[in-house]
């Protein structure tokens, strides 16, 4: 490295320019409006809100700056809009639609009335409005990965740099690889993509491998049902991930690398591509980084959306232009991977944490979490949660804190039953274990795993056999077909689970299911297969009585399995003369009895559930019962035609 002072001076120039722009943005006499347009926001109509803001402000002749930002994690409150009026704190507004957007412009921007009706909080200390971090969710959260997500414009490298971005990378340029890896080891960072392998050890193996010049890969092939944190991070702050990847390249001695993002994430691809271009154009990547003599060439690789490509050997095969099929390990890719060269593959979140550790403020990271699992983790909480979204908490937070204190509990008036943690590779942890801490070891002991951090909240209306069946259906369909246990073992398990949910399972089937689960776990080639039985094994462990009810009594305790349930109108609750349910039934299965109350013709009923939704809440007369034999025989014959 030639002139260290020169390098720092050049970076200082970039920083100055970035700060200048950032300050200008906030001190502009024009109001600043930001809209969260990550995919979660777009799905809730953020594009329409953005359009309405642009269109209405033009129509009203208002001078405003409108910018797009990423996801702040509060997906339940999307679309989220922040408005910063000159001389005021920025306010965060929740569930904005085009009408509200227009009202915001009219009252707040034009008339200066903060329009507190649907404000979520202030984003700075404020006299008028409590700040958002007084909300329970922000209070519990510790944002390292998500720190700037939803705040900065992901397509503006200057905004990342103005907020401390790339400082850790510049610092790392002056460190020896051993020092970088040493700091990482001291922080105790573990992989955030699955098994929690110590990141420093992986880097060390890669650095010391004798198979040529190493390569680095960011694994953004997220594919678990219900998990979307990697997407949100790539869409909201791609530079933090790239900075982590760049530091990794320095540590292992790589000058080339890939960001692997699945093609189903078009926005993430767009933003990563823009980030790569920008990093190159300011000189933080490319040949001769800021005159240091170092070079780093990162390419974006679009994966074709096979779940198995999240497995590192399959991911590598697919970059090589081959079919995404895992190969036996060892050799581990860190030793010998892409093109036969040592290849470091790290998850998006792992890499996003790296700048936080190397950024000279290490305490930030290792000050939180537990001893064996330091730092934070981003979980995506979905399912029957009151406030689904992304949550970044210190590891070691209990399940109860996550579900109730942070995400507001269970939606509706239902009771909490279980959490499915870690996607198709993870397991179900029952509500009785809600004091369980979320760290690698404790979750593994409970039979689940951290996985990539997907959490599905389940309530009393979720059938655990069906949950297991759902995940098995997913994994067997995503099997690459290479190994016997994964291709056929998971399929046989699915057949058994399906039979049980149809009420056709026997005790022998249950035994066979357990045997197969054990063999698939032990015998599979890669971790997709080896972890596929986890949802089955954990539900069998914690909810065995539900399986037995399906098998012995043909009863689904959660009253969800269609074949084992029936709809029944309780005559005592049904209001004579009320016709609310009749019209909604698509098969005309509801008839009027002589009492002028309604009943369901079980022969005609297709169990769609429309009548439950139609029955007015003051009656709640339609119920699901299981087993189907619980439905009493019709009490009264059908009313005569002429009774109308």
């Amino acid at each position, binding site marked *: 490295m030639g002139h260290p002072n020169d390098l720092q001076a050049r970076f200082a120039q970039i920083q100055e320019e970035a700060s200048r722009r950032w300050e200008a943005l906030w001190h502009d006499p024009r109001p600043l409006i930001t809209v969260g347009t990550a995919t979660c926001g777009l799905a809730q109509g953020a594009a329409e809100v953005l359009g309405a803001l642009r269109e209405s402000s033009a129509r009203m002749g208002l001078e405003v700056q409108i910018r797009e930002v990423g996801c702040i994690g509060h997906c339940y409150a999307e679309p989220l809009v922040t408005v910063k009026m000159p001389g005021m704190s920025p306010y965060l507004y929740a569930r904005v639609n085009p009408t509200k957007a227009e009202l915001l412009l009219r009252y707040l921007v034009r008339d200066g009335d903060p329009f507190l009706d649907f404000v979520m909080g202030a984003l700075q200390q404020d006299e008028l409005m409590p700040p958002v971090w007084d909300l329970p969710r922000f209070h519990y959260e510790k944002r390292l990965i998500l720190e700037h997500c939803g705040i900065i414009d992901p397509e503006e490298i200057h905004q990342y740099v103005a907020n401390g971005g790339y400082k850790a990378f510049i610092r790392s340029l002056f460190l020896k690889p051993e020092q970088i890896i040493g700091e990482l080891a001291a922080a105790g960072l573990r992989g955030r993509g699955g098994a929690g392998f110590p990141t420093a050890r992986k880097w060390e193996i890669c650095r010391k491998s004798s198979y040529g010049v190493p390569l680095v890969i960011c694994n953004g092939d997220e594919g678990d049902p219900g998990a979307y944190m990697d997407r949100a991070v790539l869409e909201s702050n791609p530079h933090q991930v790239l900075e982590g990847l760049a530091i990794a390249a320095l540590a292992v001695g790589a000058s080339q690398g890939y960001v692997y993002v699945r093609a189903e994430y078009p926005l993430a691809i767009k933003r990563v591509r823009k980030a790569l271009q920008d990093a190159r154009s300011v000189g933080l990547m490319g040949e001769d980084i800021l005159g240091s003599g170092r070079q780093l060439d990162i390419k974006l690789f679009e994966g074709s959306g096979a779940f198995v490509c999240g497995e590192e050997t399959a991911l590598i095969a697919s970059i090589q232009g081959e*079919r995404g099929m895992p*190969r036996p390990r060892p050799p581990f890719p860190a030793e010998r991977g892409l093109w036969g060269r040592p290849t470091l593959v790290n998850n998006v979140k792992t890499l996003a944490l790296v700048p936080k550790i190397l950024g000279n403020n290490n305490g930030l990271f290792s000050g939180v979490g537990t001893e064996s699992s330091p730092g934070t983790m981003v979980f995506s909480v979905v399912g029957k949660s009151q406030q689904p979204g992304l949550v970044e908490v210190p590891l070691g937070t209990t399940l109860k804190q996550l579900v109730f204190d942070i995400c507001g509990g269970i939606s509706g008036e239902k009771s909490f039953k279980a959490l499915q943690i870690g996607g198709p590779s993870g397991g179900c942890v029952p509500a009785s274990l809600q004091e369980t801490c979320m760290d690698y070891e404790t979750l593994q002991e409970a039979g689940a795993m951290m996985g990539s951090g997907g959490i599905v909240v389940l309530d009393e209306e979720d059938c655990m056999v069906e949950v297991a069946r759902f995940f098995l259906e997913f994994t067997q369909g995503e099997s690459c077909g290479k190994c016997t*246990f994964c291709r056929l073992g998971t399929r046989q398990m699915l*057949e058994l689970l399906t039979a049980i949910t149809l009420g056709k399972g026997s005790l022998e089937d249950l035994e066979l299911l357990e045997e197969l689960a054990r063999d698939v776990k*032990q*015998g599979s080639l890669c971790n997709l297969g080896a972890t596929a039985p986890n949802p089955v094994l954990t539900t069998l462990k914690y909810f065995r009585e539900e399986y037995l009810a399906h098998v012995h009594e043909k009863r689904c305790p959660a009253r969800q399995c269609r074949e084992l349930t029936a709809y029944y109108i309780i005559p005592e609750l049904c209001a004579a003369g009320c016709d609310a349910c009749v019209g909604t039934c698509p098969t005309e299965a509801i008839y009027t009895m002589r009492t002028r109350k309604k009943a369901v013709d079980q022969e005609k009923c297709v169990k769609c559930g429309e009548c439950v939704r139609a029955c007015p809440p003051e009656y709640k007369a339609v119920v699901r019962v299981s087993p189907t034999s619980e439905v009493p025989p019709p009490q009264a014959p059908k009313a005569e035609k002429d009774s109308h």
Partner: protein
Amino acid sequence: MEHVLLEIDGLQIEAKPGESVLEAALNHSIFIPHLCHEEGHQEPFGGCRLCFVEIQGKATPVTSCTQPVKPGMIVRTNTDTVRRLQRSALRLILSNHRVDCVGCFAHKRCRLQELARALGVGLKVSGLKDLSLQESIDSSLGKVLYDRSKCVLCGKCVSWARTNKTGVFQFVGRGLATRIGLFPFEGDQEILEGSWDVCPVGALFPADAAKVKQAPSSDSPHDP
């Protein structure tokens, strides 16, 4: 080059460095069930999951094709866990294989027949769901036919194609729908003639053998 000394089932064995445990065992007439293994192939396929052994110091059984021999290694090929996994894998393979031995091109030299005998597993699997397909022959290559319902996806034809620098056989599909796709072959047709010999189960066979196959299979010992 120095030999590697290891112990398999109590026998002291001299193996070549770099050899897999499976190869070392087979070279010394110790039988470990296997299906997808290819002799002399550098990178094991590792797909059939049959060649499990237990190695002292490892908590769970491992596939012997992926384990390079190491000095002093102690290997056992015949433990209960190993046999359980092997039988389980073979039963799964057979649950997805159309058993029609008598009319089959590979009859009496079929690897599945051999494995079933060795592991004491019936060719018609009970307990598991029958996932076998109807006979479905792809004749798009002309000279060589592919019957998907027999295929066990050992990958040998794909590897053969790669060795012969063609892409004529490739894996396609996912999950249970994974199969071998036949792609147009523009090279020397003579080369294709070698392809059916690599198939251990008669899923690939010469077009002129199809007549034999279509003969009535009333005396099949395996068909119900």
